[in-house]
């Protein structure tokens, strides 16, 4: 705006774009459409030197508007996408792919599949080679839809088996989908990337057909190959697989350790700690303590009674055995400044007591050991517990009182 009174085509369209952008950000779809109508004539000018040309702009903006505008229909949307496919051959596959995503979001699986097949058969000179990555994605998604079909057939088959029928036709179809899916899924996961859904589906297929070795190899590659971007899910999948396969504790623990390093707050940490506590090796038990303390550093775990019971159990065990109090001391050292306010405030004591007595019980134990019997949390909970005449709280009180000197050694 301001006092600029000159105007040319380029500046005019730049201004138009910024109005469109504002409208999109404020979800004013009508207004965005109004300005896009004016922007459309940019197509008649060549912007081959710009980073993003008008045809790409129109494709992306138009998609947004048509997707959200209340008066737009799926028919209009599809028609628009077909037009966009003809606009830029360098973008053809990308547009196809995005169109497929929208169709899937709208539940139109069959149309999506048709579009994917059509796109797969596209050839355009050297462009085919240049757009190789997009082509792989298209094949991968078709593989995914094949997997969905396989899954459906599998369920039908299982049902029929239950009822005592054996259905050869269904079985054949199922195997057919498997082959189609497997081929494409296998291809895409070779390329470094984040392919969670493809990996999961492929592993599912492999497990069903009993190819556990291949499945383990795939998951190991996905988790440990440094060329692939760091992805905590990869480790989760591996751990889940190892568990399903009843693999040795050793491999499971090493996988979980990596997960702990990447995502200390992951939900598998409870299982991990439980496993580690049971171990005969001192190092493992030490690690267990580290793991459970680290998990409880995160706000999402504050009210998790199971997590607290893990910690409580381990701490109690240490206190009773009077061995390895230095472990607790080490863990507590970096936390003693902020855990009291974070977990053991009087407000939380009241709330935990009201909402979840087991939680408060476990927390009170930990608080009592770490902060001594005089701490707010313990005092409140044990008092309430005594009032309510609950046995376990009486026992809790006794326990903490008996072991109070420990607190002094820890906090010192």
């Amino acid at each position, binding site marked *: 705006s301001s*006092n600029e*009174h000159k105007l040319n085509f380029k500046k005019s369209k730049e*201004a138009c774009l910024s109005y469109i952008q504002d409208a999109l950000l404020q979800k004013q779809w009508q207004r965005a459409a109004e300005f896009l*109508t004016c922007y459309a004539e940019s197509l008649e000018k060549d912007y081959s030197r710009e980073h993003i040309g008008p045809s790409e702009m129109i494709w992306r903006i138009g998609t947004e*508007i048509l997707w959200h505008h209340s008066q737009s229909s799926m028919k*209009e949307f599809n028609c628009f996408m077909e037009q966009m496919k003809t606009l830029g051959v360098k973008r053809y596959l990308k547009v196809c792919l995005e169109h497929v995503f929208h169709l899937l979001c709208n539940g139109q699986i069959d149309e999506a599949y048709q579009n994917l097949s059509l796109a797969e058969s596209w050839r355009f000179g050297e462009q085919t080679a240049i757009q190789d990555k997009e082509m792989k994605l298209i094949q991968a998604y078709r593989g995914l839809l094949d997997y969905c079909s396989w899954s459906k057939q599998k369920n039908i088959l299982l049902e029929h088996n239950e009822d005592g029928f054996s259905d050869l036709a269904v079985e054949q179809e199922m195997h057919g989908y498997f082959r189609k899916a497997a081929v494409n899924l296998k291809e895409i996961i070779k390329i470094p990337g984040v392919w969670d859904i493809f990996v999961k589906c492929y592993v599912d297929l492999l497990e069903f057909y009993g190819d556990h070795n291949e499945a383990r190899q795939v998951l190991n590659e996905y988790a440990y190959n440094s060329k692939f971007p760091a992805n905590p899910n990869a480790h989760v999948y591996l751990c889940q697989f190892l568990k399903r396969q009843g693999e040795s504790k050793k491999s499971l623990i090493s996988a979980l350790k990596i997960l702990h390093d990447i995502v200390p707050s992951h939900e598998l940490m409870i299982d991990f700690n439980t496993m580690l506590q049971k171990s005969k090796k001192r190092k493992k038990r030490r690690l267990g303590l580290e793991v459970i303390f680290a998990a409880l550093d995160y706000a999402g775990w504050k009210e998790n009674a199971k997590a607290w019971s893990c910690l409580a159990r381990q701490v109690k065990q240490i206190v009773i055995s009077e061995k390895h109090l230095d472990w607790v001391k080490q863990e507590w050292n970096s936390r003693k400044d902020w855990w009291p306010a974070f977990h053991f405030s009087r407000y939380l004591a009241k709330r935990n007591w009201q909402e979840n007595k087991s939680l408060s019980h476990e927390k009170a134990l930990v608080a009592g050991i770490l902060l001594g019997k005089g701490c707010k949390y313990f005092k409140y909970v044990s008092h309430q517990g005594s009032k309510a005449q609950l046995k376990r709280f009486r026992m809790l009180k006794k326990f903490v009182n008996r072991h109070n000197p420990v607190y002094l050694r820890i906090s010192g």
Partner: protein
Amino acid sequence: RDFNERCAQCSEVNWGLTDGGRFYCRSCHNVTERTREVVNTDFITNSRVQTISKGLRKQEKKDGGSEWYICEGFQLVLKKQVEALEALGVCPQMKDEILCNFWRCYLQKSKQAYCKRPAGEAVKALSVCESSTDVDSDPERPSLLHLLSLSESEGDLQTDCSFASSVSKVSESTSVYSGSVDGSLYLMKNQEEKLSMTMPMTLSFCYMALLWVREPITLSELLRYVVEGHIPYLNVFQHFPEKMKLCGLDLKIFCVESWPVYEEVFNKMHELAAFLDLPRFPDITESCFLHPDMLCMKYLMEANLPDELHNWTCRVVKKIGIGEVDFLTLTPGNKSTRKVKYDVLAAAVIVVVLKLLFLLDDHYEWFLSELAEERNKNNTEGGPYFEFKKWYEVVKRSLDVEQKKLDEERAKYLWRCEKPLFYSVKNKSKVLKRRQMVVNLQNQFGKLSGSVQRAEKPNPSSFQLSWSEENTDGSCFHGHSLKGILQEKCGLLTAMNPDYWLCTVKLCNEKLCGHLAHYREVEFPQSYHFVLGLFSFLLRIQPSYIHDEVCMIEHKLFNKKLYKKLKYNTVLRK
């Protein structure tokens, strides 16, 4: 001028000249038989008008088009433009007598027609030349490719590969390069002669004609009408007849992709007037619309300022002599007189008057406003006293609304039209496909724009802001009195403000750096910037142009003091 007889009809001595060279009475429009014996006025030359079409043109070409020359195209453009002006109420003589004659004179002087050897004849020879593979053999004549690379960066020419490749494959006809016969020649000649015709120059022609007839349309208004679509300019080629095929280099000449710029049209007009050897234009006198007294009146109204300010503007105009006929009237070729921008000048006078009365240093005008407010409380007379603060609030609000509308209009401006343009037959289908896609998209998203349909072109209006005295909310300041900020001294009402600050102590050399001064918003008070902004909006020009005129006026006004007391840097006592 030496004609002193009384008019036979009305007995007045107030003569003007028709372009036929006859004297006519300005009061009653009585035309006499007396002519002025000066060769100058007879700028229409020989009556043996040789039209371009005869003898040189082959009628039918393969694609149904016929040969046409660039200047024919421009002639059509001018015709359309002047017809539009006529529709706006301009006198009909402008088309058939004034503009037509200017154009013919131009053609003659630039040797494109009406002379013994029209330049078009050379074209054939040139195209044969170019069919040799050695296009760059003549180092002086820029090759076509070189010409293309000199074009503006956003031109399609550079990026259209199919066109570039066709340049090397020369064909016999020149239609590969341009639909017109001399399109390529025209662009090349651009380098040598300074005054080839361009689209902005068509507006210079129009303005020149308007000035000759002294129509009440300023240049800024003319350009605003162009932008608003009342005067054909942007896609005027769509009115060319079917047989005038437009392609290739013609596009570079006739397609416009930017709004006309005041300075460019203005300067070209003066160049043109000198080139055509025109005599002194008809006098701009006090009764003319373009006279600063008249224009100030208009702008004061539009700016919602009190009518009483007009007295002050007239005083300033008189004091510095910018109301004199000789100052205002254009004499082409006279390099010593400064070229007058009537609209900018009038706006600048108002700005100076505001500075005189209100100082506009971001403090004093508000102080005066409070004073006026106080006085207004005890005001028993008819009209209220003018309060700067109230005026500022009202005008700023309206201005912001209008500016916002204008900004949206700029973003929504449509540049293309239905008639497709293509550089060569090769990319015709691509262009048509693209056009179809654009139309489809416009339809599809136009429907989703809701009830907001593109409004019809607003009727052309001379006033962009209007204020009605009938509004009871007090938002019209025309009738307000300045007494609130004036004081009596020796029986006269003078401004209370004793000070004045100069925009600049030393003027730049306009010929060297193009400006008299350099305006940077941060260096000046906000109120001054606001006032400049207001007129900048009304005239659709950069504030710096108005600032230049303000500087010029101030230097004339405080001439004596400036040269005597140079040590008093910025603040002077009046």
